[in-house]
């Protein structure tokens, strides 16, 4: 929004900023709105108002960048620590993104607040691409949307395919209990063969990688186990306790979903703060450049009006003498 406001300011000022002789500048400035009628000198009020508003915007975006940087530090540590939650699952069950299933549910994770650059749009773009990729005869793909921003974009053209939307997730600091209750709700309300979780993985402060994690339902795990590979080796494990393999797979699938969702939510929150930091940084830089251009124009206008007054005084004086 700050970017759009700055762009609007720039466009309004574009005719004045093109290199034209001073007379040309004067006429276009005088034709602006709040020059009082009958004034002899050019008013610099318009330019001064613009400069004040651009300076305020710059201060705000700088402050938002600082806030995002401090939040980033805290949550980055937690996101990196939570990576250890799903790694054992991948070591045990493998990762099969290309599995062919009938019922796909795409869980798209996004932020509730805006001004965070393009990360929400990339998540939505990838979700829609995945939807197209996994549609076909007898196949069904539905969405579960976390976060207001993705909901707003999805509602425009994929309303029929949305199963659940969740918001206000970040009101309290993110914790595992909250995400696991959420995962529980999703599992209870949704039938799926495979869950695809789409989020932005945090690589570094400037790079966020859109990622997809796959969690299979226990029946599909059984089916894939017969096909061999990592899952086929599950039978070589001994099962302790009184539970059957199907029981254990059920528990593992639920817990895997909860862990993967927790990590995904944390990583997305970290990416959100990083993207907000860089968006606000480029916004402040643009505001600074705009302020420089406005200052030059202000000085030119001011000098032009001084010159005009001098000319009038001198010509008045010489008219008296002569």
């Amino acid at each position, binding site marked *: 929004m700050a970017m759009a406001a700055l762009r609007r300011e720039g466009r309004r000022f574009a005719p004045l900023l093109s290199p034209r002789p001073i007379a040309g500048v004067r006429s276009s400035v005088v034709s602006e709105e709040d020059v009082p009628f009958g004034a002899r000198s050019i008013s610099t009020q318009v330019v001064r108002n613009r400069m004040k508003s651009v300076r305020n915007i710059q201060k705000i975006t700088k402050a938002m960048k600082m806030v995002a940087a401090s939040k980033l530090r805290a949550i980055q540590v937690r996101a990196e620590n939570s990576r250890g939650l799903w790694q054992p699952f991948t070591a045990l069950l493998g990762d099969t993104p290309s599995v062919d299933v009938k019922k796909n549910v795409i869980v798209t994770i996004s932020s509730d607040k805006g001004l965070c650059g393009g990360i929400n749009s990339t998540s939505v773009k990838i979700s829609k691409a995945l939807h197209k990729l996994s549609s076909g005869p007898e196949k069904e793909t539905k969405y579960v949307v976390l976060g207001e921003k993705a909901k707003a974009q999805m509602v425009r053209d994929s*309303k*029929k395919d*949305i*199963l*659940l*939307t*969740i*918001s*206000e*997730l970040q*009101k*309290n600091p993110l*914790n*595992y*209990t*909250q995400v*696991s*209750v*959420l*995962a*529980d*709700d999703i*599992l*209870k*309300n949704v039938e799926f063969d495979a869950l695809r979780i789409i989020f932005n993985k945090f690589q570094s402060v400037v790079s966020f990688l859109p990622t997809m994690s796959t969690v299979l339902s226990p029946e599909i795990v059984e089916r894939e186990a017969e096909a061999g590979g990592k899952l086929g080796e599950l039978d070589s494990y001994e099962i302790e*306790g*009184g*539970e*059957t393999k199907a*029981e254990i797979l*059920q*528990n593992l699938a*639920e*817990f895997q979903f*909860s862990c993967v969702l927790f990590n995904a939510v944390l990583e997305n929150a970290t990416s959100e703060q990083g993207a907000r930091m860089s968006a606000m940084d480029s916004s402040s830089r643009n505001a600074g450049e705009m302020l420089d251009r406005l200052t030059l124009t202000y000085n030119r206008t001011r000098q032009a009006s001084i010159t005009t007054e001098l000319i009038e005084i001198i010509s008045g004086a010489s008219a008296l003498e002569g």
Partner: protein
Amino acid sequence: MASNAAVPFWRAAGMTYITYSNICANLVRNCLKEPYKAEALTREKVHFSISTWNDGKPEKPVLRSDTLED
């Protein structure tokens, strides 16, 4: 505490493994002593608003906001 029955007691009661492990975690957190206990219990706060969609229309969102939904 798996019983001899085919299904563990909590699954027969309709809970998923996630709910079961959350209850167990809650019990462990309640065993802590005072300053750590308050800190640990802040890590259990749940707040989100979920709304199911039927055929393109959202129903009224349900706010789940409590410490631990057991």
